[in-house]
C-alpha cells in the first residue's frame, strides 16, 4: 500500500486534534505549539490552563479548538491543578490519561513558579508545558521575567527598558532533579515531537519550555513567526537542549557556525530602539551563556 508507506515515513503524526477556528492572532506561535502537542498526546489527554493567551484562544462555547477536556484554573495554579487531577485519576485507576499543564510565561516564570516548584519537588506525574512568548501578551504586552534584556513592552518603555536577563527556568526546574526538562522551538517540530514522546513515557515531573513567538507583541509581521523562532535557535538566543534527572545535559542543536544576534533582533519592533552597543551586549551575553551550557554538557556526560 502506497499510503501506508508514506505514513510510516512521517515524522509528525498525521491526525489533527486541534481544530481550525481558534481565536489566536495571525501568526501565533502558541497555537502551533498546541497543534504539535496534541498530535503526540492524542485524545486521552486533559489540560489545565491558567489565565494566559490560550484561555482565550480556545474559543467560547460551543467551539473548543483543543477537542480534549480542559480546566481553566486560577492564574497561579496550573501545575497544582494538574497534580490534583492526576492523583484523582490515579485513585480511580485511570492511569492511561495524560495530564498536561499548559501555561504562558507569565503564569510560569512569575506568579505560577511556587506551584511548579511544589509539583516538581513532589515529583508529581504531570507534564508542564510553558509556551513562552516573552511577555504578558493577553493583558497587553507587559513585561514578564521571561522578557529578554532590552526588549520593549508596555511596562518596560523605551525610556526605562528591561535591564535584567530572562530568568533561566530550565535551570531552576533541573535543580529540583526532576526526571526530564527540555527546551524546544516551534521552528523545529521534529525535535519538539521527539521530546513530547519522551516525556510521555517518563514517570514523574516533566517540563518542556517551548519558544513560541508572538507577532502582535514582538511587533513583527505574522509571516515571520517560524523564521524568528528558527533564528532564535540559530543565534543561540534560545538554545534547544534537554536535561535528564537534573544533571545530564544534551544539546539538540549544535552546528559549526552560528548566526549573529542582529539578524534575529532587527526583525522585531520590540528591539528597534537598540543601538550597536545593545546588539553587542546581547551577543556577548549569548556567547557567555552558550559556553556555560557547553560546560554543563561536558561535565555531566
Amino acid at each position, binding site marked *: 500500500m502506497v499510503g501506508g508507506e508514506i505514513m510510516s515515513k512521517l515524522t509528525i503524526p498525521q491526525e489533527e486534534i486541534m481544530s481550525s477556528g481558534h481565536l489566536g492572532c495571525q501568526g501565533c506561535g502558541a497555537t502551533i505549539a498546541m497543534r504539535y502537542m496534541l498530535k503526540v498526546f492524542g485524545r486521552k489527554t486533559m489540560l489545565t490552563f491558567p*489565565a494566559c493567551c490560550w*484561555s482565550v484562544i480556545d474559543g467560547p462555547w460551543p467551539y473548543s479548538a483543543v477537542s480534549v477536556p480542559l480546566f*481553566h484554573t*486560577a*492564574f*497561579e495554579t496550573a501545575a497544582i491543578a494538574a497534580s490534583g487531577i492526576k492523583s484523582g485519576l490515579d485513585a480511580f485507576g485511570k492511569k492511561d490519561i495524560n495530564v498536561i499543564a499548559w501555561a504562558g510565561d*507569565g503564569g510560569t516564570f*512569575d*506568579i505560577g*513558579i511556587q506551584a511548579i516548584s511544589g509539583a516538581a519537588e513532589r515529583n508529581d506525574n504531570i507534564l508542564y508545558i510553558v509556551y513562552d512568548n516573552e511577555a*504578558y501578551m*493577553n*493583558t*497587553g504586552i*507587559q*513585561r514578564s*521575567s521571561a522578557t529578554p534584556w532590552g526588549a520593549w513592552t*508596555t*511596562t*518596560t*518603555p523605551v*525610556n*526605562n527598558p528591561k535591564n535584567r536577563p530572562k530568568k533561566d527556568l530550565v535551570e531552576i526546574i533541573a535543580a529540583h532533579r526532576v526526571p526530564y526538562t527540555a527546551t524546544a522551538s516551534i521552528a523545529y517540530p521534529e525535535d519538539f515531537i521527539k521530546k513530547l514522546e519522551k516525556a510521555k513515557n517518563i514517570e514523574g515531573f516533566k517540563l518542556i519550555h517551548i519558544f513560541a513567538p508572538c507577532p502582535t507583541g514582538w511587533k513583527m509581521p505574522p509571516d515571520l513567526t517560524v523564521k524568528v523562532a528558527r533564528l532564535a535557535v540559530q543565534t543561540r538566543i534560545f538554545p534547544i537542549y534537554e536535561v535528564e534527572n537534573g544533571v545530564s545535559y544534551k544539546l539538540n542543536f549544535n552546528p559549526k557556525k552560528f548566526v549573529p544576534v542582529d539578524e534575529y533582533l532587527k526583525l522585531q519592533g520590540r528591539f528597534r530602539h537598540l543601538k550597536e552597543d545593545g546588539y553587542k551586549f546581547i551577543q556577548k551575553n549569548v556567547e557567555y551563556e552558550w559556553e556555560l551550557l557547553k560546560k554543563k554538557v561536558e561535565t555531566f556526560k
Partner: protein
Amino acid sequence: MRRKQVLQGNIIVAKAALAARCNFFAGYPITPSSEIAQFMSRELPRMGYDFIQMEDEIASLGACIGASLSGRKVLTATSGPGFSLMQEHLGMAVMAEIPLVIVNVMRGGPSTGLPTKPSQSDIMQARWGTHGDHPIIALYPAFADEIYSETIRAFNLSEKFWNPVIILLDEVLAKAHEDIELPRKNDIHIYKEKIHRIKDLNIYDREIGENPPRVDFFKGYPIHIDGLEHDKHGWPTSDPETVNKMQTLRMQKIYHYLDEIVKFKEYYMEDAEIMIFSFGVSARSSLAAVKMAREQGIKVGLFQALTIWPFPKIPLKERFKQIKKVLTVELNMGQTKYEIERISLDDVEKKALLRANGIPFTPNEVLDKIREF
C-alpha cells in the same frame, strides 16, 4: 486657560496619583487596570521614582507596604482576582497602620469571570475580604472629575488616618475616554503628613479617637512594626486589655471622623418621594433615569455614594425619616441592598435593580423600575 483633555479613566487615576505626589508604584498586570501600571512605568522613572513590576499581587502589596514604611507615597492597581491575592497584606497594612492606596478596577467574577466586562461585585470584598475585624475606607467615583478628585482624596485619607484606602472603579469608567478639565496644581489640596521626630518608643500611643501621627520609622529609635497584635510600642502582646485598647484605637481613628470621610452627592432630593441609592456607573444610569422620571412628573431623587466604606449610614438614616421608598441600583446580586435593608426602617418600601451579567443598566431599565413603585 485650562484646556479640556480627553483621558481614559485609568489614566485619570494615574495622573491624579502623581498630582497627589505618589512616588512609588508596584503592580502586576491585570485587565482592566493595566493602563495604570503602564502609565506609571513611563512617568515614574522619568521623575526619578520607582515603578516595579512584581511577580504577582501578593508581592505588589508587599512591596507597597515596604515602600510606604520607608516614606514613599504608594499606589498599586489591580482587579478582582488580584485584589483577592492582596487580602492578607491588606489586613497586615491595617494592623500595622500603614498608609497606601489600592485601585481595584472591578470586573465580573468570581475567578477569571468576565475580565473585560464591568461589575460592582467587589464591594463586600473591599469591606470584608481580609480576615479579622478591621476598619477600611473605600471610595467610589462615578464621573471623570470624581475619579481625579477621589484619587487625591484617597491619598489624603490614607496619609491622615494611617490606613489603607481602596478606590473601587468600574471597568467601563476605567476604560472609557472622557473629557476632563484637570484642576490647577494650586487648587489641589494635599494633606501634608506631620512627621514626628520620635522622642520615645511609643509609636502607636494615642488616645481613642485621636489621629495617629506619622512617624519617621527609621530615624531615632529602632522601631518594631508588627503584624502580631501589638502594644503602644509596636511590640507583640496578647494581653487582653492591651489588645482591646489597640483594636478600639484602630476602629475609632476611622469611626470618629465619619463626617470627614463619608462623602456623597445628591440630585433632585429636595422634594423626592422615591430615593435611588447607587454609585459608580450605575449612579450615572440612575441620574439619567431620574431626569427622565422628573419630566414625567415622578418625584424621584438620587443619593450617590462617593464613600462606600464606611457606609453612609448616618445621612441615609436621616433621609429615611422623610423618604419612604428606596431603590438600590447596583451591578451585582445585592451587596449594598442588604446594607440598605439594615439601616432603613420597616415602613420604607425597598426595591432593588440588580444584575451581574456584565451589562451596565440603561436609564430606561432604571426608569421602568422606578415606575414599579
